[in-house]
Structures are given as structure tokens and as C-alpha cells.
């Protein structure tokens, strides 16, 4: 039965997925089992994304289905059900840039892969990153920026976090980011999409 839910989510059959989740809950399936099915489906979608069989619409639809199923399941969850997180990732779009679509997808994929993600939003000043690094103690920081005008704020943010004693890893991403900009900003790596960000987190923090 759980497999049918996995398949419905992975194959983007939204109505079927929601109906199945509702039916399973009504039939007494433990809420955690339903959430496990969601995670399993996301793993399938993640593999398809890496293989070039799934793209942004599928990630967005999956996110939407998961949100709806979580809302159904949440009232029946006990606190003990909170899954252990693998590690902490701080993320945000750098100062002066207000683009959020790519960053939101990365946040979602990291979250679904078991990382505790703190998202500072867009147009985040350097000082706010430094403060959040101190308070949240992330192992990894992800900086996003869509414009070429994000290059210098990225560089400044990384320098400021390093100066404040951050010793973890920094990854950057966005439309005009490449290896030359990784070198220019002093980031440890750049990722071309959300799965690349997950892969980097797995390498650095573990899975």
C-alpha cells in the first residue's frame, strides 16, 4: 500500500497521492510510515533529477504534494516522531539580489534529504550571515545569487564569515556562477542545481 503512495508521488499523480494518503491515515497506517513513503518518493525523484528525467516542474509538484500530505499527517504526529537531522545548512541570497526560486528549491531538497536548513531569505546583508553563522552554527553555508552583481557580495560575505571564525564549507550557486566565480569568491564549491547542493552537503556533512 505504501508503495502505491510512493509511486503516485514519484509519478506526479497528485490527486491519487492525496487520496491514498487520506485513505491510509483513515485505515490506521502510522503517520511516520506515510512520511517515510514521502521520503522514499523524493529519493526516487532525486535520482530521476540526477539522471535528467525530472526537472523543476516535478520538484515543485513534489514539494506541493509533500506539503499537503504533511498537513494531513501533522495533527496525528507525536513529538517523538521528529526525525534526527543530519546536519545544519545556512542558506540565503546575498545582498542586493532578491531572487529566490533557485534558493527555495535548494532549501527544499536539502530539507527533504534530512538536513536542518535555516533560510535567511533574499537580499541578506553580510552582517546577517555572520550573525547567523554564530547563532545557528552551521556546518555548511549556501550562498545564492542570480545576477552577476552577486559576485562581489558573495566574496565579501565569505570573507566576513571566515574573519568571524567560520571553519565550515561554503557552496555557491545561481545563473551566472561557475568555477571562475568559485575561485574569485573563495567558496569551497559551486553547484549547478539543487541535487548538486545535496551531493555537496552529503560529502561534507555525511548522509
Amino acid at each position: 500500500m505504501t508503495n502505491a503512495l510512493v509511486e503516485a508521488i514519484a509519478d506526479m499523480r497528485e490527486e491519487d497521492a492525496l487520496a491514498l494518503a487520506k485513505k491510509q491515515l483513515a485505515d490506521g497506517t502510522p503517520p511516520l510510515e506515510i512520511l517515510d513513503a514521502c521520503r522514499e518518493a523524493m529519493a526516487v525523484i532525486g535520482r530521476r533529477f540526477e539522471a535528467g528525467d525530472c526537472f523543476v516542474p516535478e520538484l515543485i509538484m513534489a514539494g506541493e504534494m509533500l506539503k499537503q500530505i504533511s498537513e494531513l499527517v501533522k495533527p496525528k504526529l507525536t513529538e517523538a516522531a521528529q526525525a534526527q537531522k543530519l546536519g545544519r545548512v545556512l542558506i540565503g541570497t546575498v545582498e542586493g539580489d532578491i531572487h529566490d526560486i533557485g534558493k527555495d528549491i535548494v532549501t527544499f531538497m536539502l530539507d527533504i534529504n534530512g538536513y536542518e536548513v535555516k533560510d535567511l531569505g533574499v537580499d541578506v546583508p553580510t552582517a546577517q550571515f555572520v550573525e547567523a553563522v554564530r547563532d545557528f552554527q552551521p556546518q555548511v553555508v549556501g550562498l545564492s545569487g542570480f545576477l552577476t552583481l552577486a559576485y562581489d557580495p558573495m566574496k565579501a560575505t565569505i570573507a566576513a564569515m571566515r574573519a568571524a571564525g567560520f571553519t565550515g564549507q561554503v557552496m555557491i550557486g545561481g545563473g551566472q556562477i561557475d568555477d571562475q566565480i568559485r575561485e574569485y569568491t573563495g567558496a569551497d564549491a559551486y553547484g549547478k542545481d539543487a541535487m548538486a547542493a545535496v551531493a555537496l552537503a552529503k560529502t561534507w556533512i555525511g548522509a
Partner: protein
Amino acid sequence: MFTPPANWRDLPARDRREARFAAWMALDGKPMATPAAQATFTRHTQRVKDIIDLKKPDRVPLLPFMGSFFAIYGGITAHDVMYDYAKYTQAWLKYNRDFQPDYLVFSGAFNPGKVFDLLDYKVYRWPGRGTPKTQPFQCVEAEYMRADEYDWYIADPEGFYMRGYMPRAFAALSGWAMLPTVFATMELPMIPAFMIPAGLPPVVQSFKAFIAAAEAALEYAGASGQADGQIMAELGLPPLPGGFTKAPFDIIGDTLRGTRAIMMDMYRQPAKLLAALERTVPIAVQMGVGTATGQNNPFVFIPLHKGADGFMSNADFKKFYWPSLKATLIGLVNAGLVPYLFVEGGYNQRLDVIADPEIPAGSTYWTFDKTDMQAVKRKLGGWAAFGGNVPNSMLHAGTPAQVTDYVKQLIDTVAGDGGYAMAAGAVVDEAKPENLHAMFDTCKSYGVY
């Protein structure tokens, strides 16, 4: 303004294009300041015409699309560009004089802040109004068309824009939501009822804001025309790209539905989305024809956004993105225009689809960002003019020597048969002046055929 000849309806697309090019090359009969400027103008217009015709010009044309580089170079802020026309003019003149580009490529960064202030525009943030004064305007996506409004849009796109979209996109025009349909003017007894809403206070307020914004737009047009007229006359640079339109998928995805919503529509209501895309084709064509004709320019600039590699599968690209874009391109070509496609991101997976034999050879120009240029040459060479791909990251973080090598390599590997222009991959904002000089100088010296 391009005035079509009397026999326009009988002319085939090729002849229409020749007529548009001839009018552009005559520049409405405006004289250049010097014979040298006139010679430059003639040489540069012919050069870009040659590449569209898939010929070898005298040398590779230089066609980078300008963003806010000129402002940074001229020491003014993004806020100055949008609010202080004197400062803008000075910086714009300085860039064009110092760099001597081949064309007067309109800077996308130059837009009138006052107009957007007066309209209380919501779809973008701009310097001092949501972005720092040093950063250019940026779009903020939202669902300005709701999921259940496709039927309204499909039945009456202009009515939807006027009474649905605009009151949401421009807070100062919120009164327009109360306007009746213009069809309510078709008989004498209907006209009083039609006029009444326009007299109600919220609608009156909206029209006042509309007129104030229109006056501010005229002021901007005057400043813009004066600066560009001076550069054209002094340096002989032909204006490009002229008209503007968008791919129907981007028209609906960028500012009506937003990325998230349109991508969910692909699953939740594909039939409505497809019907809306089809409905948008004549609008996209008309927008391109109208703007290019108004500018007396054969080119129509079309930035491509949501169809790039990674955004959707090739199957979805063929189903949702390409058919309405292709129909738009064919519509523009039939009107004698040259679509100037600005292909953002990567298009490696799409090359086989876009090189569509139903689009006539020698009728379009494609500028690429992160697409493999060897593959572009293989797939598009002999069918369409192409260019682009000088990395913006290198222009900012690289060295002049690196840029020089990159430009030479592009010329060596993909420019040989003509039909090719040199351009940066994306809009030029951040760049080291010495790197941009290296790009321009190398193209001018090494790019001679």
C-alpha cells in the same frame, strides 16, 4: 517609425525584410555629424545584415547586450540611471565614446524610476524602492493571474490585462478594476452607463496617476532620444535591437502566473495552459511588430527564460514552450522582422528542437549564454545567425589575456563561415573595463575576415 510601402500586403516576407532593412539603414534620413560617422553607420548596418543573411561580413560584428556596466564604469549608481537623466546621459556617452562598440545597444538598465513610482508598480523592485540604490531593478514573481482566471484571459486577454492584471500590478491603477468593457460603447444609449464608472473617485484617481506617469514617460523619452541621437550622429552607431517581445510561455510564466504556478499548471491544468499559450501568439507577434515598426528597426529582441536546460524536460519543452514560440517567430519573420533571441542559461538539450526547418534559413539571430558553441555551429550553422557565450564571470573575475584567448578561440572555431556575432553570454553588468576592452579590441582586430 517605419512606414510600410503601399504594396506591403503583396510583398513576400523576404522583400518586407529588405524594405525594413533599407529604412533602418537610411535612418529616417537623419544626417550623421561627420562623413566618418556616416561611413561607420553604413558599414555596421551592412555587417549585421550580412550575418543574418548567413554571409561573411567584413569582420565579426560585436553585439554584447548592455546592462548596467556603463553606469558602474561612469561612476554613477543604478538609482542615478533611473532618476537623474543628466548623469545617465554623461555615463552613456562616456561608455560609447571610450569603448566604441559596433552598435548603440539600448541599455536595459535605463528606465524611468519616476514612472514606476507614480504607478506604484508591484511586479519589480528598483533602486531605492526595494533594491539598494547601487543595484538594478529586479522582478518579484507573484500570481498576478490566479489559477482560476485562465478562461478570462483566453476569452479576452486585453480586458483581463486592463481590469485584472493592471490593477494588481500597479497599485495606483487599482480603480481600473471597476472599468466596464469597451464594447459597452457600441450604441448611443449604452454610452452614459459606460462612462459613469470613470467618474467614480477611485477611477478618477487612477486616471490622474496614469496621466502623471505618461508625462514622466515622455520626459524620459526626450532624455533618451537626445542622448541616443547624439551618440548616433557623433559615432555613427546604428541602434539595436529595436522591437521587443517575449515567448508566450514566458509572458504567462514571468509576470502573470510566476514560475511555481505555471509549472504546477503544466500538471494541474495543461489544456488551459496550452489554450492560453496559443491565444498569446498573436499578442506576442503584434507586440514585436508594433515596437519594431515604431523604432524603424528590423530586429525584435526576445529574451528566453523558462525553457532553458534543467527547467523542464525536452518533451515538455516541445509541448509547452516551443510551439507558441515557433509560431511567434514565424509571425515576426512573415512581417519582415528578424527575431533576436537572447537565450539565457544553457540550451544544449534544445538545439535539435529550435533548428526547425519550418523557420526559414537566414531569418533569425540567436545569442547564447552557457551553450556549447561547437554544438551550436553544428546544429544552427547555415540555418541561422548566432553568437554569444563570452562568459560574464570571466569578464568580471578573469584577466584581459584570458578574455583575449577566449574571444580568439570562438573566432577560430565557430566564426569561420560567417553568420556569427561576438557577444557576452548574459547582460553586461559587472565587468572589469580592461576585460571588456580586451573583448572588443580582439573582436575588431582578430575578427576580420
